[in-house]
């Protein structure tokens, strides 16, 4: 649920793109994950959310765990060595490059975000193993052509690439999300992969908490139905078990047996 949409019209007296007067999705997410990169306004919003929907801490943990399993699958069985991770978020445990490079040290990761706070943290703390590479792209997902063009100078577009949209498409309505996702998928070479998860609208408390959050001044986030998730994977060969509750996607012995709050999957471009 990182902040991938523009918030540049928010109050920002110092002119550095950091606003500590409204809750910030990457910082709240950091709070739910037990991180320390959050401010009072984020902790308050995070606690309010938690009161309505205590499961949010589980959502945060299981989402991270899904990212970890998906990247491990992509770098392992799928043999992917290039990752385009859009909507990076603030650094936490098991960041994409750490997971990928623990499987294949030569993995190359391009982190994309348009939030100055996230980018500054990524450049300083998401640093590559000597055998691989990490690059940081300041770009807005609303302009997929721009992202693909710059990524082409950092990644080899003749080789398959894993496109990752982890918890960010909820920031867009269907009308916005489908064209963005299909433009990004279309720009990738055949044999590339696509991984995504987002929150699902199948739990009433989750829906309610999200409505409250969206009214708080933070960048809104929309929960989707399982059918809507399937549409984001249209035209791809789904990797088993398909687009499913993330706790059921290739679980390992450590996977938390939690309630179903989020859906996700991995697909391969034919």
């Amino acid at each position: 649920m990182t902040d991938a949409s523009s918030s540049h019209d928010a109050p920002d007296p110092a002119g550095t793109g950091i606003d500590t007067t409204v809750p910030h999705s990457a910082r709240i997410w950091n709070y739910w994950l037990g991180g320390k990169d959050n401010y009072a306004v984020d902790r308050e919003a995070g606690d309010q959310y938690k009161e309505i929907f205590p499961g949010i801490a589980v959502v945060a943990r299981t989402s991270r765990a899904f990212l970890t399993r998906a990247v491990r699958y992509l770098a392992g069985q799928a043999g992917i060595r290039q990752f385009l991770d859009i909507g990076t978020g603030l650094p936490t445990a098991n960041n994409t490059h750490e997971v990928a490079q623990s499987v294949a040290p030569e993995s190359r990761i391009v982190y994309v975000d348009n939030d100055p706070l996230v980018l500054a943290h990524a450049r300083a703390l998401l640093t590559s193993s000597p055998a691989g590479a990490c690059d940081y792209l300041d770009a807005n997902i609303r302009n997929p052509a721009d992202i693909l063009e710059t990524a082409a100078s950092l990644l080899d577009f003749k080789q398959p690439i894993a496109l990752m949209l982890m918890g960010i498409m909820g920031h867009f309505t269907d009308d916005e999300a489908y064209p963005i996702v299909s433009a990004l998928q279309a720009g990738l070479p055949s044999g590339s992969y696509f991984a995504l998860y987002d929150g699902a609208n199948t739990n009433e408390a989750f829906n309610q908490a999200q409505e409250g959050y969206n009214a708080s001044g933070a960048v809104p986030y929309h929960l989707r139905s399982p059918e809507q998730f399937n549409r984001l994977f249209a035209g791809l060969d789904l990797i088993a078990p398909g687009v499913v509750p993330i706790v059921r996607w290739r679980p390992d012995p450590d996977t938390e047996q939690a309630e179903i709050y989020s859906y996700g999957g991995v697909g391969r471009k034919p």
Partner: protein
Amino acid sequence: MSTDQRDGGRAGEVQGPTVPRMLVGIQLHRFREAAAVTPDQAAYEIRASRSKISRMENGLVRFKERDVTDLLTLYGITDEQTRSTLVALTRQANTPGWWSKYGDIMADWFEAYLGLETAASVIRTFELQFVHGLFQTEDYARAVTMLGHTSAPADEIERRVSLRLNRQDLLNGPDPPQVWTVIDEGALRRPVGGSAVMRAQLDHLVEVSRLRHVTIQVVPFSRGGHAAAGGSFTVLRFGEPEVPDVVYIEQLTSALYLDKHEDVDHYMEVMNHLSTEALTPADSARFVAGIIRDF
């Protein structure tokens, strides 16, 4: 922090006593609050001052094992497991760090900082005057030391320089902290020790910035006034989730350690503004190379 901390006989473990000390402090604070005991009551129980209790709870002093067990009894903590865990942590907290042999030339308030630095997982600093101690060359460190200790004898200067260079072992250890520095252009242009010393220092800065766990960002003059009107400061983060970030601000004869949420939030906000305002790490390395050519 009292000077009797240095009388321990055992060799220090790599991490040092600081984090165990903070963990004991945090627990004592929680138990005291839960038992609704005032600092004065707690102080009376162990024949100490109210400020000693506060320093204990902030993890800034060495603990006497008996003080800890007496306080636990006062707070109604009878569970044997909880008590023995805390006693074990107390023992760890009393193990001297590698820096203890420099005790004679080091103020207590700086000794506390070394403990934090050694234990930190992320060190974020803003430097307005000088290159950060972890990145100083020997000649630059000597020049800075002589500025601060004009009347010190030569052998004391050398021990101070040696202490500073020993600190840098942290960067080459097996599990180094992430060191993320924002440095003002002024600190890079001020000719500490002369042009040759500065050129070597700036070369070294570019060199260390290539380390995976080191990030150096420059705030150039052209970026105008920045958020840290107050001056240099450091924010230390620890791997343990229950240990809060600590802000360290050095003054001439003492230092401030802040770990309250509202203080840390404020400094972290300033640090984040500085980091987003500064040149990116890649642009900073090019910028420093440009300054080297000017010397």
